[in-house]
């Protein structure tokens, strides 16, 4: 079979880490090839080399049988290789058409936006990717933005499309739509490389699978038929993976968090949360399933005092709605934010300074207006040991910590503050399997100690493993509730996440409006 692209002997390293260790990889014409591996395995690095963003230290790439050398993404695009990254490279304030135009060579000088919009609409219709070419990107949903990214590549004449974790931001139904699109693109003679860490999806869509682990290829271009999830998991992680969580039986206690009719706008001034209501009891984990952009991030910010709102947010009976964050903190709300480096930590300050972020107002760290350096250090030392945060010294700036370690730091700090309610938003994003297990166990331990936990996550599997109840949020409303959720509920949950309703799942008891 003809090879659209092949890479041989790729070596790429960064300070302290060998990301790609003599990797071979090839893509056939007209196939969907999945690249599987856990976070940190080197998949994105390899693809960045193929897409021209990184220069390999050793090794070569061939496209359509010819040796090529990419000095920049431009060269790769010119050779027909395009990549849709996890973090979209769109300019939010510009329109879809302007974004599509951005990397093109024509028109050279004068822009005719009307004509471009028509061309974009035509192409979009042909491949089944619906989008409004005159819309500004910030107005689009995440799924629609992804379609724009794919359209950009097609406009450039990409023959090989590389998609980096494309399903992370999609609901199950949207995933199905995406797969249909990918199939039709493959049918046209293009090739698709699909990077993922999700076993189920990879088995569903791929013609061939390559597995990477710790910078090396552990299985090259294997046939998905006749391969089990367990086999793949072992190839990914190198040991039998069985998430064995200690989960105790608990009886939920008093209502710790009660949200009543809360509405809030997002940063753009558009309504993000509409009359949402829910409650969380002590000793239970309530999971919130939602596709990115449906108001769940804003809801978390409302609860933790980082965003204003209307309605009532009662924490142990105290209304913290539309009050400064200090009020929520004093009421016992802990927050593991989605943005670890941007919100949850001060990157240039030391570990000590970051670890006592919740304790600096109380003794022993605070003595009157004074700040007891010794007490702070010993608390930091204690937490570092207890949560196994790997770092050379206590005084190192926090920005040098790996993602997993940073999350451990944040969890250590929040849990140590003994919150009545913990709001955790995407707590395991970007972490490797070991770290994920650790986080899950910490949350379950917290649950058995009587803390109320609101877990907002895009990973349905995570919610199913941890949550006592799963709520679904769609377009700012809480539209469904699933008690004692089972794996078989995935379909129904997914349907609600995209706004459909198949009659299963209960409408939540509190008034929530219709979908």
């Amino acid at each position, binding site marked *: 079979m003809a090879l659209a692209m092949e890479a041989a002997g790729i070596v790429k390293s960064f300070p302290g880490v060998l990301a790609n260790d003599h990797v071979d990889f090839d893509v056939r014409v007209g196939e969907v090839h999945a690249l599987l591996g856990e976070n940190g395995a080197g998949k994105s690095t390899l693809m960045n080399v193929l897409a021209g963003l990184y220069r390999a230290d050793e090794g070569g790439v061939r496209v359509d049988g010819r040796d090529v050398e990419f*000095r920049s993404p431009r060269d790769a695009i010119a050779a027909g290789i395009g990549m849709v990254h996890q973090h979209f490279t769109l300019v939010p304030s510009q329109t879809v058409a302007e974004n599509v135009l951005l990397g093109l060579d024509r028109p050279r000088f004068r822009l005719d936006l009307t004509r471009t919009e028509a061309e974009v609409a035509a192409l979009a219709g042909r491949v089944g990717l619906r989008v409004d070419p005159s819309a500004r990107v910030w107005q689009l949903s995440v799924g629609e933005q992804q379609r724009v990214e794919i359209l950009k590549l097609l406009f450039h004449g990409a023959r090989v499309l590389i998609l980096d974790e494309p399903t992370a931001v999609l609901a199950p139904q949207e995933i199905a739509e995406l797969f249909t699109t990918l199939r039709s693109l493959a049918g046209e003679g293009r090739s698709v490389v699909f990077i993922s860490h999700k076993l189920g999806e990879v088995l569903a869509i791929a013609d061939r699978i390559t597995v990477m682990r710790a910078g090396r290829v552990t299985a090259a271009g294997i046939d998905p038929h006749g391969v089990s999830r367990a086999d793949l998991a072992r190839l990914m992680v190198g040991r039998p993976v069985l998430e064995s969580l200690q989960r105790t039986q608990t009886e939920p206690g008093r209502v710790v968090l009660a949200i009543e009719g809360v509405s809030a706008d997002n940063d753009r001034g558009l309504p993000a949360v509409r009359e949402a209501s829910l409650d969380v009891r002590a000793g239970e984990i309530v999971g919130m399933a939602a596709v990115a952009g449906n108001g769940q991030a804003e809801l978390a910010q409302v609860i933790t*005092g980082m965003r204003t709102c209307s309605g009532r947010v009662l924490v142990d009976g105290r209304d913290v709605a539309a009050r400064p964050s200090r009020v929520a*903190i004093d009421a016992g709300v802990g927050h593991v934010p989605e943005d670890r480096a941007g*919100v949850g930590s001060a990157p240039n300050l030391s570990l000590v300074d970051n670890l006592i*972020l919740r304790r*600096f*107002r109380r003794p022993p760290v605070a003595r009157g207006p004074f700040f007891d350096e010794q007490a702070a250090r010993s608390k930091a030392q204690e937490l570092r040991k207890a949560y196994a945060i790997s770092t050379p010294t206590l005084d190192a700036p926090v920005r040098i910590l790996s993602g997993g370690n940073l999350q451990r730091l944040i969890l250590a700090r929040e849990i140590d503050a003994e919150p009545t309610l913990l709001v955790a938003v995407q707590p395991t994003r970007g972490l490797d399997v070991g770290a994920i297990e650790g986080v899950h166990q910490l949350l379950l331990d917290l649950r058995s100690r009587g803390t109320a936990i609101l877990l907002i996550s895009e990973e349905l599997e995570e919610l199913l493993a941890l949550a006592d109840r799963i709520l679904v949020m769609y377009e700012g409303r809480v539209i469904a509730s699933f008690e004692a959720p089972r794996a078989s509920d995935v379909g129904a949950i997914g349907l609600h996440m995209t706004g459909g309703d198949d009659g299963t799942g209960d409408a939540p008891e509190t008034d929530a409006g219709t979908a």
Partner: protein
Amino acid sequence: MNVRLELRGDPPRWLSPVLTIAAVVVALVIGAVVLAFVGGDPVRAYLHIVDAAFGDIGVLSDTLVKATPLILTGLACALAFRMRLWNIGAEGQFLLGAWGASAVVLIPILPAGTPAIVVIPTMMLAGALAGALWGIVPGVLRARLGVNEIITTLMLNYVALAWIQFWVFGPWSEGGFQQTVAFPREAWLPRLTDFAAQFPVLAGLTTHLGLVFALIAAAIMSIVFSRTRWGYEMRLIGDNARAARYAGIDIARYIIVVFAISGALAGLAGMSEVSGVVHRLQDRISPGYGFTAIIIAYLARFGPWRVVLASVLFGALILAGREIQPSGVPAMIQGVILFCLIVAEVLTRYRVRIGRRAVAPA
């Protein structure tokens, strides 16, 4: 040749001071080159500066006099800059403080004949309040409306100057000249030379009590930064404002308070200049202290005691530099020093890698 910058993980502690000193040296060398270029004699000029500023106890005393307002305004800037609040208005706040202190004597707020023990503290209070007011306005605008404080503080500098000029040329003018009447003796900050009767060695030394205020302010600020809760909160705000909000800190209130204190310090500097040195209000009372303070604060990496040290050095530069021709050279050197400091700061954070072209684009 491909020059890249690579983030350092954890820079060694000696790196920053060494690079800072190196920056100053490089700047002085550049200044020397420019001086030579326009026909001056750099070696003689620099030696002259050292001699004219530190040569004997008399000129050392004069250097300290020049350093006093620099310390206070430098502290004002350092305080604000720590939180990435760009108070470029120290110059205007200085002028307002000078005006406020003068108002006590010239309106007059206190009747003539009031003893010094009442007049001086009142002038201090008036100067600090006037400066604080001048700082609070841009502070509130920034905290509540997100208005760029660089523009507002800077514009208020010009307004402050016009304000002073009005009073100096108008209601308070002494016989139509560009200055006010001299202050009565009770309004003069005590100077070392006032005690020459008891200690003859102090004769002619113009260092005044303002220096003590400045040092006390530096001490207080140092303690606040390193040992108090406020210091921690300011560190947090300065590094990541979103994380500070996440930690429950009321950023808007900090902005306003910091601008007020910053303005108060600069205002106090104005008071000390007017009461300790000139003993009257003039419109030329500041040779750009508020702007030099910016450089001092940056040079000192916003540390209070380093501000004191840098202020003495710059005081020397101002004192002796008046005699350097052409007159723009000291100002130019200040700009060069700031640029060199900026580069030094970058080199502290990043390592420079010079590689061949085949290295990955970064």
